[in-house]
């Protein structure tokens, strides 16, 4: 197949990808969009096979069968709570593939020194570097989320210095290659160094910051893919890679904003190992915790007009989302208006909580994002906080000494009554006190989220 026909087919792929993303702007069209994207991918694969220079067709097909089978099985089996690690894994293999392409291209194009155009060697180095960091970083993120290694930040003295020196050495190797020292061992060393850097770079980042890290690694893999497009002079790789790069960047910024933290702070701040300072406790004096029985809370819920559920990751960990949906159904059957207020960083990746609730058959019009949910709280009778803590902490609004000061939160304290389902009075993931629990409007229902919700269901049924 000629170059023109091939490039036109690749253009069709690009158009398909753009429509795929466009259709993702609404839940009713999103699934179709994903299919359009898949068809675009098939076109690109088909046309690449049709190029007459391609040989080793059977080997390639075998490789596809192996990789595809693994991907399909993993994607079918994964639990929705484990979605972040699945995304990290697929992200990693994509980055790894980009790095390997660069390694092979370099080996292929530069048997002797001084044969590469500057732009080609720069792209090879960029995709090798970014792809390797993305691969290794994603694998560490996967291991942390899967709890194969501890989720808390792993820090040691001089960490930044070590990372800085390593990055410097990697860049030096890259510059040497571009300057003409096109030695095979240099690119192998560069990839090795980048893999190590990827590991060291994600290790000190805490579990609660994973939404940012996954978004960032997603952007990295996109950039690595785009760089391979420059190596191979292939537009479909450049455009698709940059679409992903743009998406990952946007999500990274959004997540950073939702936590009111700069990217640098997330990456280098080792958040989550800091114990709250004395300033954080400023607002918590002069109140007592009120706890209630499940039956009391069941009465409050059953006779409310409007109930807003505020789910946090604790709900997902306890696997309580199905019970929460059941409770909501019961309340709706009694004429109570129920909706869910979802903070952007609820869960372990952007939008994770929505997926978990959708899996529990919560209709998506009931899922309200922060901007839509906050104006609703003043006319809410009961805000039911389940397994969420920092995202409803009023200190973020009013206590300048708090580590989360400035983070946008769900203003549950504006509703008539706040019910907090919580395991115990231990502070949340970030180790920060929460004055919401001492608010006179607040009642606490202690216990495992799933058990508590089951008791509430029984309580409402008994009425």
């Amino acid at each position, binding site marked *: 197949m000629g170059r023109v026909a091939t490039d036109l087919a*690749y253009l069709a792929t690009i158009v398909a*990808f753009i429509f*795929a*993303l466009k259709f*993702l702007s609404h*839940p*009713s069209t*999103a699934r179709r969009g994903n299919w359009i994207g898949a068809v675009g*991918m098939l076109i690109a*694969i088909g046309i*690449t096979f049709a190029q007459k*220079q*391609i040989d*080793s067709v059977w*080997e*390639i097909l075998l*490789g*596809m*069968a192996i*990789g*595809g089978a*693994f*991907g*399909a099985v*993993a*994607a079918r089996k*994964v639990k929705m709570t484990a979605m972040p690690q*699945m995304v990290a894994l*697929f*992200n990693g*293999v*994509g980055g*790894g*593939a980009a790095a*390997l*392409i660069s390694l*092979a291209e370099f080996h*292929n194009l530069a048997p002797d020194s001084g044969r590469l*155009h500057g732009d080609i060697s720069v792209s090879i180095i960029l995709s090798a570097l970014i792809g390797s960091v993305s691969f290794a970083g994603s694998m560490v993120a996967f291991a942390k989320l899967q709890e194969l290694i501890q989720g808390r930040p792993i820090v040691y003295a001089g960490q930044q210095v070590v990372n800085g020196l390593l990055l410097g050495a990697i860049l030096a190797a890259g510059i040497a290659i571009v300057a003409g020292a096109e030695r095979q061992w240099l690119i192998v060393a560069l990839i090795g160094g980048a893999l190590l850097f990827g590991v060291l770079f994600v290790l000190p980042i805490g579990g609660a910051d994973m939404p940012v890290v996954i*978004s960032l690694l*997603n952007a990295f*893999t996109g950039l690595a*893919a*785009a760089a391979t*497009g420059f190596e*191979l002079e292939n537009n479909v*790789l*450049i455009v*698709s890679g940059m*679409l*992903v790069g*743009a998406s990952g960047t*946007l999500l990274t910024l959004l997540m950073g904003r939702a936590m009111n933290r700069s990217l640098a702070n997330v990456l280098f701040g080792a958040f989550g190992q800091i114990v709250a300072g004395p300033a954080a406790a400023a607002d918590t004096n002069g109140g007592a915790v009120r706890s209630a029985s499940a039956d009391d809370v069941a009465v409050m819920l059953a006779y409310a007009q409007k109930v807003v559920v505020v789910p946090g990751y604790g709900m997902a960990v306890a696997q309580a989302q199905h019970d929460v949906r059941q409770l909501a159904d019961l309340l709706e059957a009694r004429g109570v208006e129920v909706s869910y207020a*979802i903070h952007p960083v609820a*869960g372990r*990746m952007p*939008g994770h909580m*929505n*997926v978990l609730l959708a899996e529990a058959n919560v*209709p998506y019009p009931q899922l309200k994002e922060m901007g839509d949910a906050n104006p609703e709280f003043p006319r809410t009778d009961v805000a039911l906080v389940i397994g969420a803590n920092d995202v409803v902490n009023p200190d973020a609004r009013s206590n300048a000494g708090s580590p989360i000061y400035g983070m946008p939160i769900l203003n549950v304290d504006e509703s008539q009554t706040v019910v907090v389902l919580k395991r115990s009075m231990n502070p949340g993931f970030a180790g920060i006190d929460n004055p919401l629990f001492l608010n006179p409007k607040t009642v606490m229902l202690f216990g495992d989220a799933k058990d508590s919700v089951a008791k509430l269901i029984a309580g409402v049924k008994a009425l």
Partner: protein
Amino acid sequence: MSHSLLLVFEVTILVLAVALGFEVISKVPTLLHTPLMSGTNAIHGIVIVGAMLVAGLGHKDTLTTVVGLVAVVLASANVVGGFVVTDRMLEMFKRRDPPREDDGSGRN
């Protein structure tokens, strides 16, 4: 086309792709951010094209082919896994439950 002209052309495409990407993706609601991420994940599986080209184009030695084939395996896992898992998620987003038995059954 001279080499530097080609490069300028490619960079132009890159810039336009970024602009378009920001435009389209900023319209995706937070509701769908997880599927967005897994969907774009599948899209960067397009490196499979690069992997195929490296593994399958002539004038190369065994090392290139082997490395290229490993890249094909990784990229295929990326593509298939990405699209399948995104489809699984999007299937769950429903406006309302399918009507229960007592709805529309004529009784009641």
